[in-house]
């Protein structure tokens, strides 16, 4: 058995030793460098585009919206985002003109020689003042008025979370060229088939004339979910016009200023409770800032909405949510996908409720937390794999939460101590896979191939972006077949080689696509048994078996398609039913200390228990949990994109502060494995879950330490100092 073992990460050695080639490391012969001329106003009409006559433009290729053969559109959900601004710009850093030159520095110089004049139009930056709604949702359960009427207390709170930059180690980078009539697009990306779909509309080409290939990718975190579709369009326009390969590799400043970030959010809670702490009514309002174009905002909001009531059963719930337009670069996918914003609110709100009811937030959570058989706000009955209570119990025990609360209360009373200490708690659920009927629409496919020489290859469009996908796929396939994991390789995501397994997002790669790989491998196993009499046991045996199964063909493929579990029902129109096939669960305790002189926060220890169904590779799962939690701690304490006139002004890693290894506390990770019968070997999602709740746990710990509730992130020394004034 390989599943459950810490197989070494397949991409590890090459990345560790610097042998892995990222797009900008690859020498593409004859390749030119593409650069982008961007808008310098947040909203305006383009009056003119002028090219400095003293510059040798004949050395360059220049592209504007006029050069687009098909639709001027980045195809995603709504048809609203142009590939290149034409006539009007709706945010700063919007792409208007593209330039390619053999020399990168000269290309950048050329970009400076383009003068664009605008007629300014009034911008809207404040999401609360925006009247353009991209999408709204309403979830209702029970009778809200009756719930509030029965309540002994009603507690209100307002919570805000900022944007966040994905800060992947490799910036966005794509190259394009044409080879034998096929447009090849290659680079750093999460979702090859999203790029393919966008290219079809831009270039009016069929799938056989477009090929998307992922290169080694330095992280994504959602930041390479939709943006590569735009960048690929840009590179391909230049390449086709130049008649040669063109590469566009952003530098950090450009990437941070121009590409997508987490949606800022405002969440209001009004909660009715019985005096013993039972939830009776939750009225929740969510507003998110989508930026200038809809991109993924509707689905980000959907996930935020579906997680807004938290991992608690409440008989009467209303969630009203909307995502609005502002004249800022579009916000998009980021690990957690709307859930961290609404979970911050619902989790921190327990601290307010605790004050109102004089019952500690741990007891309140225990009284209301999801159990097997609980019903969610959408009316979903949780029929299996519900580890919320166990996560909470383990986290509380191993963090010594209860005794530390008391110990720190005593410590904080002593005026001579140089610090305040606090420990804070949070719990969450996270739906794995696409929301509602999303997986049905995706109809993902994945498979395995057996070549005549006996190679076993996993075929999936899911990308390795540092999370361990390739290692996990090999382990799942190996155990489904009953052979060592080393027998399997994983095909490079290439749309001419692998089927469309859907995007690498939504904590779905292991649970959904891993499940498809497992099913396809079972088909292969049955073929071995039927046509070779057994599953091969040795390498020599495998060669013989391969010859028997391939029957002279170069390879045999076994592909399967996603099938909706029959028990799952969902109604998009009413937002009722099984919002997700299953949920993962997590609890976290953050133990911290605050310097009284400076209000600097030092993280002492993080304890977290996470129910992910089954850890296919426990070490990789732990890595995901520590990495995701650290990203959450960055959002909680350090990270804040600052905007001025619609553009990010701290668009560099000097002043956009992410945690370093020295800022990362000691972690105790406890894996909880409540198997999900529909997941491969019981596995659920793990990718996003750890990002969800470090924020509210930090804020609760800060409140414990200082006595002040700061209902916003990040909890910087400046904000703590201000709250203590």
């Amino acid at each position, binding site marked *: 058995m390989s599943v459950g073992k810490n197989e070494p990460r397949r991409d590890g050695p090459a990345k560790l030793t610097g042998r892995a080639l990222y797009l900008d490391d690859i020498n593409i012969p004859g390749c030119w460098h593409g650069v982008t001329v961007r808008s310098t106003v947040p909203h305006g009409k383009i009056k003119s585009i002028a090219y400095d006559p003293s510059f040798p433009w004949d050395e360059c290729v220049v592209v504007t919206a006029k050069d687009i053969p098909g639709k001027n559109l980045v195809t995603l959900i709504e048809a609203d985002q142009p590939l290149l601004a034409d006539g009007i710009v709706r945010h700063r850093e919007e792409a208007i003109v593209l330039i390619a030159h053999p020399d990168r520095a000269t290309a950048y110089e050329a970009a400076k020689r383009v003068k664009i004049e605008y007629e300014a139009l009034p911008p809207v930056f404040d999401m609360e003042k925006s009247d353009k709604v991209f999408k709204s949702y309403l979830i209702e359960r029970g009778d809200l008025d009756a719930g509030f009427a029965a309540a002994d207390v009603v507690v209100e709170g307002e919570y805000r979370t900022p944007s966040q930059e994905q800060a992947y180690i490799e910036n966005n980078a794509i190259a394009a060229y044409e080879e034998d009539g096929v447009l090849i697009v290659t680079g750093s990306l999460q979702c090859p088939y999203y790029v393919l779909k966008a290219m079809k509309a831009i270039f009016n080409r069929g799938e056989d004339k477009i090929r998307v290939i992922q290169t080694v990718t330095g992280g994504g975190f959602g930041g390479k979910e939709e943006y590569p579709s735009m960048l690929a369009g840009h590179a391909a326009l230049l390449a086709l016009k130049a008649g040669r390969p063109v590469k566009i590799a952003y530098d950090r400043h450009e990437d941070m200023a121009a590409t997508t970030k987490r949606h800022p959010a405002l969440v209001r809670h009004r909660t009715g409770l019985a005096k013993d702490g039972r939830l009776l009514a939750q009225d929740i309002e969510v507003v998110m800032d989508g930026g200038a174009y809809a991109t993924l905002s509707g689905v980000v909001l959907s996930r935020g909405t579906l997680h807004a009531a938290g991992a608690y059963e409440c008989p009467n719930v209303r969630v009203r949510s909307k995502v609005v337009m502002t004249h800022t670069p579009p916000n998009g996918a980021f690990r957690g996908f709307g859930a961290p914003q609404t979970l911050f609110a619902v989790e921190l709100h327990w601290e307010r409720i605790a004050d109102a009811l004089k019952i500690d937030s741990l007891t309140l959570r225990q009284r209301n937390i999801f159990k097997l058989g609980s019903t969610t706000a959408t009316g979903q009955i949780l029929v299996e794999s519900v580890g919320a209570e166990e996560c909470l119990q383990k986290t509380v025990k191993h963090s010594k939460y209860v005794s530390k609360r008391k110990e720190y209360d005593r410590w904080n009373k002593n005026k001579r101590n140089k610090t305040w200490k606090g420990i804070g708690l949070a719990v969450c659920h996270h739906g794995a896979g696409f929301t509602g009927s999303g997986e049905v629409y995706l109809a993902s496919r994945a498979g395995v191939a057996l070549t005549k020489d006996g190679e076993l290859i996993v075929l999936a469009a899911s990308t390795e972006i540092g999370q361990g996908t390739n290692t996990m796929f090999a382990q799942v396939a190996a155990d489904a077949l009953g052979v060592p994991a080393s027998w399997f390789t994983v095909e490079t995501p290439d749309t001419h080689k692998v089927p469309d397994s859907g995007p690498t997002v939504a904590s779905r790669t292991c649970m959904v696509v891993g499940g498809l790989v497992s099913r396809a491998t079972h088909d292969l196993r049955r073929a071995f048994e039927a046509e070779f009499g057994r599953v091969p046991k040795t390498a020599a045996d495998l060669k013989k078996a391969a010859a028997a199964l391939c029957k002279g063909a170069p390879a045999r493929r076994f592909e399967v398609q996603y099938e909706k579990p029959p028990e799952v029902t969902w109604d998009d129109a009413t937002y009722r039913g099984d919002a997700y096939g299953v949920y993962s669960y997590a609890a976290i305790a953050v133990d911290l200390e605050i310097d009284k002189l400076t209000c600097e926060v030092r993280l002492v220890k993080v304890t977290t228990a996470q129910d992910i169904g089954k850890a296919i590779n426990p070490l990789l799962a732990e890595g995901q949990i520590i990495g995701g939690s650290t990203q959450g701690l960055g959002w909680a304490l350090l990270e804040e994109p600052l905007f001025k006139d619609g553009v990010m002004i701290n668009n560099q890693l*000097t002043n956009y*502060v992410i945690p370093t290894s020295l800022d990362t506390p000691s972690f105790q990770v406890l894996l909880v494995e409540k198997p999900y019968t529909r997941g491969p070997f019981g596995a659920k999602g793990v990718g996003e879950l750890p990002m969800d709740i470090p924020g509210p746990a930090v804020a609760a710990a800060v409140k414990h330490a200082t006595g002040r509730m700061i209902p916003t992130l990040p909890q910087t*020394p400046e904000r703590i100092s*201000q709250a203590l004034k």
Partner: protein
Amino acid sequence: MRGDAKSMTVLSPRSAAEAVKAYAKSPAALPFAGGTDVMVGWNMGQLNGRAVLDLSRVAEWKKITVVSDGVDLGSLVTHAQIQAHPVLKKRFPLLTAACATVGAAQIQNRGTIGGNIANASPAGDTFPALAVYEATVRAVGPKGRRGVPLVEIFAGVKKTTLKPGELIEAIFLPFPDKTPTRGAFRKVGTRAAQAISKTVFAGLLWNGKGGVLEEARLAFGSMAPTVRRLHAVERFLRGRRLNDVSITAAAELLTNDVSPIDDIRSTREYRLRVSRNILMAFLKGELK
């Protein structure tokens, strides 16, 4: 990466004398010591078309020399070298502490004390320590050598009073006449490493006879366009007993010498409040 190597000229002097000569001929060249700040500008394409004066072969300026009345730090001495030097650790501990907070190990290995000064960031981590040790910057140019007190080398944000053709040769740290009764360094950055300071403090004080303060030297960085000695506070405290009343009154004078701003790293209010807390803690003997 927007730097364009082929648009640039590199001058490579092999000695101090050659460096001074080359710089006199090309005063627009950018002196390159450790390069930790230069490379940021290079990456942004800000150096395209410029000449760079590469000082890496100027061996004379890479030495730490202990003399009878102090220590002479060659301008190309790295932050790592300073931290490791036994005499500096013993006699100038605030400077070694400051060097340990610059960037992270990689930056400390490359970044030089002379480069740090010439770069003239308002947030230079070593400057408050150099200011309270009353270091002198020794500049050398076509017209010879001159010594400039550390606080006077800075003319503003990223500006120095170095004249065209002048390079920093060394920084001289005089041994204090008497061992300070107390000294402390404190940097408040944005995170645990690779952090730019929001406020950075160094303080020395000497107690005199009868329990009164003989002398205090106090300095803050990141609280004004250049590093500032707290002259008003220092004057006020001289000859007084340090107690809650005098310390509170002294802290009131902080703003006579500093004027922090709101920027993308912090706020004026936070910087003032925290600097005041640090100053008072130092005077009370509570700053570690």
